[in-house]
């Protein structure tokens, strides 16, 4: 019954003239990894709820047809239907000023119960789409309830809804698993049962868990979806992606919105002077658990990993690191995918400067350090020794690593 929309963000796509007049163009589009992950997450939620999964595909021009055209890829990754919107303004990157109208149009056409955005499009579009839908919004991760690091509480009094979902999950192929009466399954009997049975038998978890970083709370997706307000989520990064085999989703062309009235030009800049922290995927941080010597080796590790090195307020105050490397209030924030924290206890001011999507790997000799409460991976060990061992792995030929290990 419900609709689930997944925004598909395209990587930079080639356009090619299609036909002699040179005006009609087609596009060779490729979905980003994060989009396919979001689609896979959406597929599992849809299978669990018996919802229809729409892949929102904003494109400058109709995508070209080929062996692995974007429609086939999206179908294979779980889309029931592909909502294609074409407009010259829909070139990647997905920004609010360019892609909002197409997204709103898709949401108007298929009022969703859940909208999933990949990063980085979701940051731009998610909040205002949520506003427009009067939806709840979060930038988070969806985990299987069964795989969450601690067992979730039993859902109280929500069993009626769950049973319902389960029934639709195991509904017979062709019996309208999508539940949308207006969109009866097409008569193409060769592909239809395959898709229905494939999606119906995927290992859909019973429920999903949303973890809220700040509140250190987790709650169940079914609880949120049981409410009348829709939910808009921007998923962190990329992750698991699975395909369901050959498949053909229906394509729905939603009318291209009028060209964006915001005059805008976008170019990609390579601006190293803007600071390596801006685009870093990994950032290393050092705290008071490190001395000046260990900081020097952390710098070596950073060089080996291509990761910039930052420090906690306390380490800067102790003079182990320059003041402009300070992460925290009055300093920098970290927006990387992974933050390796060596000897950082995790003051609130420091942790608040880390992006919600940053995965923290904590190395600290104090097992009660608050950083272990928010880290994804931790090791209770002397951070200096761990730096040396990582350095030996990452840069085995570095001459100074042997000297460092002599300490």
């Amino acid at each position, binding site marked *: 019954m419900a609709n689930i929309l997944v925004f598909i963000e395209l990587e930079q796509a080639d356009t090619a003239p299609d036909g002699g007049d040179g005006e009609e163009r087609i596009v060779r589009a490729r979905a980003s990894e994060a989009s396919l992950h979001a689609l896979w997450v959406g597929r599992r939620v849809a299978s669990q709820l018996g919802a229809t999964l729409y892949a929102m595909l904003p494109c400058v021009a109709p995508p070209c*047809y080929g062996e692995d055209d974007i429609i086939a890829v999206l179908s294979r990754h779980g889309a029931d239907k592909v909502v294609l919107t074409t407009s010259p303004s829909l070139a990647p990157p997905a920004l609010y000023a360019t892609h909002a109208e197409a997204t709103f149009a898709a949401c108007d056409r298929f009022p969703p119960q859940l909208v999933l955005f990949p990063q980085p499009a979701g940051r731009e579009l998610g*909040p205002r789409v949520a*506003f427009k839908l009067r939806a709840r919004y979060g930038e988070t991760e969806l985990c299987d309830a069964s795989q969450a690091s601690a067992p979730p509480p039993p859902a109280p009094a929500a069993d009626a809804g769950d049973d319902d979902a389960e029934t639709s999950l195991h509904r017979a192929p062709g019996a309208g698993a999508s539940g949308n009466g207006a969109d009866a399954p097409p008569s193409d009997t060769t592909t239809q049962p395959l898709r229905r049975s494939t999606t119906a038998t995927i290992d859909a978890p019973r429920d999903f868990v949303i*973890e809220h970083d700040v509140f250190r709370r987790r709650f169940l997706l079914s*609880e949120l979806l049981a409410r009348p307000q829709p939910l808009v989520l921007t998923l962190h990064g990329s992750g698991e992606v699975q395909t369901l085999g050959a498949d053909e989703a229906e394509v729905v062309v939603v009318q291209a919105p009028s060209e964006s*009235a915001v005059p805008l030009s976008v170019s990609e800049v390579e601006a190293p002077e803007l600071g390596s922290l801006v685009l870093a995927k990994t950032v290393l941080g050092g705290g008071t658990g490190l001395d000046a010597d260990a900081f020097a080796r952390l710098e070596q590790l950073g060089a080996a990993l291509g990761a910039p090195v930052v420090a906690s307020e306390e380490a800067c105050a102790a003079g182990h690191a320059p003041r402009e490397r300070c992460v925290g209030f009055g300093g920098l924030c*970290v927006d990387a995918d992974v933050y390796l924290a060596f000897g950082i206890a995790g003051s609130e001011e420091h942790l608040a400067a880390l992006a919600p999507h940053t995965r923290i790997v904590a190395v600290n000799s104090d097992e009660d350090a608050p950083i272990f409460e928010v880290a994804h991976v931790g090791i209770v060990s002397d951070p200096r020794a761990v730096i040396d061992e990582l350095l030996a*792995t990452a840069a085995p030929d570095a001459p100074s690593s042997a000297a460092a290990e002599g300490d």
Partner: protein
Amino acid sequence: MRVVVLIQAPRGAPADDEPRKLDGLPPCERAALALASKLAGDEGSVTALTAGPREDERVFAHARALGASRCVRVTETAVDWDNLDSVSALLAQALEEIGFDVVLAGDRSANWSSGMTGPVVAHRLGVPHLRCVIDVEHAPAADLPLETVQTDDENAALEHGRAFEARQDTIDSSDDDGGFGDEEPTVADNIALRASRSGEHRAVGGHDDDDDEDDGGGDGDALSPTDTVADDGAGGLAHVDTGEQALASGKTVASMNMPTLPPDTASLRQHTTAGPPLAVSVQHGARLLRVTLPSPLVLTALGCRPYEALTTEAAAAVAQAEPSVELLDLSDADADGSATSTTLRAPKTLASAIADVRPSLSRIERRAEIVADVPALIGKLRALGVLGPAS
């Protein structure tokens, strides 16, 4: 250039549901202030704006030290300050009152929310926004592709209609000879072909069932809304008689810059006049983009870059500054109560959703997966892509 910076008193994760106040200025808001000073230059003004009850005026001291020439606090007694809905409405109204060319905010306020304040205020103001802003500067007007902007809606729609018809022609002719000629067929062609082969000529999703939902807005109906290319045969797409519809939609679209909002979330004013253009550097995933677009704008800054540090003198000033804060009381100006009325409903964040779903909540006591030794840690780092695969 009038620059307004939205400042929130930083708060930390709640201990027993009571948010803790944090000391200092979060990095993103600090970056917003740095960019604001840069943008305003000598002739412009930088106003620090906050909404909420009088708590800690030290954020304003920081703001002054970082270049804000004016500090304004919006007061309103009947507002739930933790509710983005009412706060964003109030901020938007205050911004209209103060006047602005650019609004800057922190991309995330101390990890408290999901960074919604900037975009939602932008939505209420009816201006575009950009997130993850690293840098911003004035841009020459020549950088804007103006000619593509002024496309007449009717012409655009007609062109689009022609494009559809042209494609339909291609499909028809290719059906005849069973091939696609030299050019690669589009997916649309392919779909049409699949449909015709299976003998199933069915429009996916009817035209009629969305008429009621249509808000008549920027996503208007110049073309029939859901023409699938698999529409039935000859008549299918030929009915794209766009002239009249385009005119109808042109009435609603042409007068504004941004997508139409439903009436109950309508912005206070549609900013139809484009101001001086700005070149904004934004982080977009793994890339850095330079987006040039006209003000007015809402930008949320990401504090990933070392901006000018607080000088010793300025820091000393912060320590003892008693900033003069103007109080802006909108409760009188707002005769019809629209800014705070319940019809303006912003989305709830997950944070506020917590209150609703308390029964199912479980507190995460310790989330880190503790590994036993460094080789295990190295394995984790390889899985995270920090370290390359083992050689």
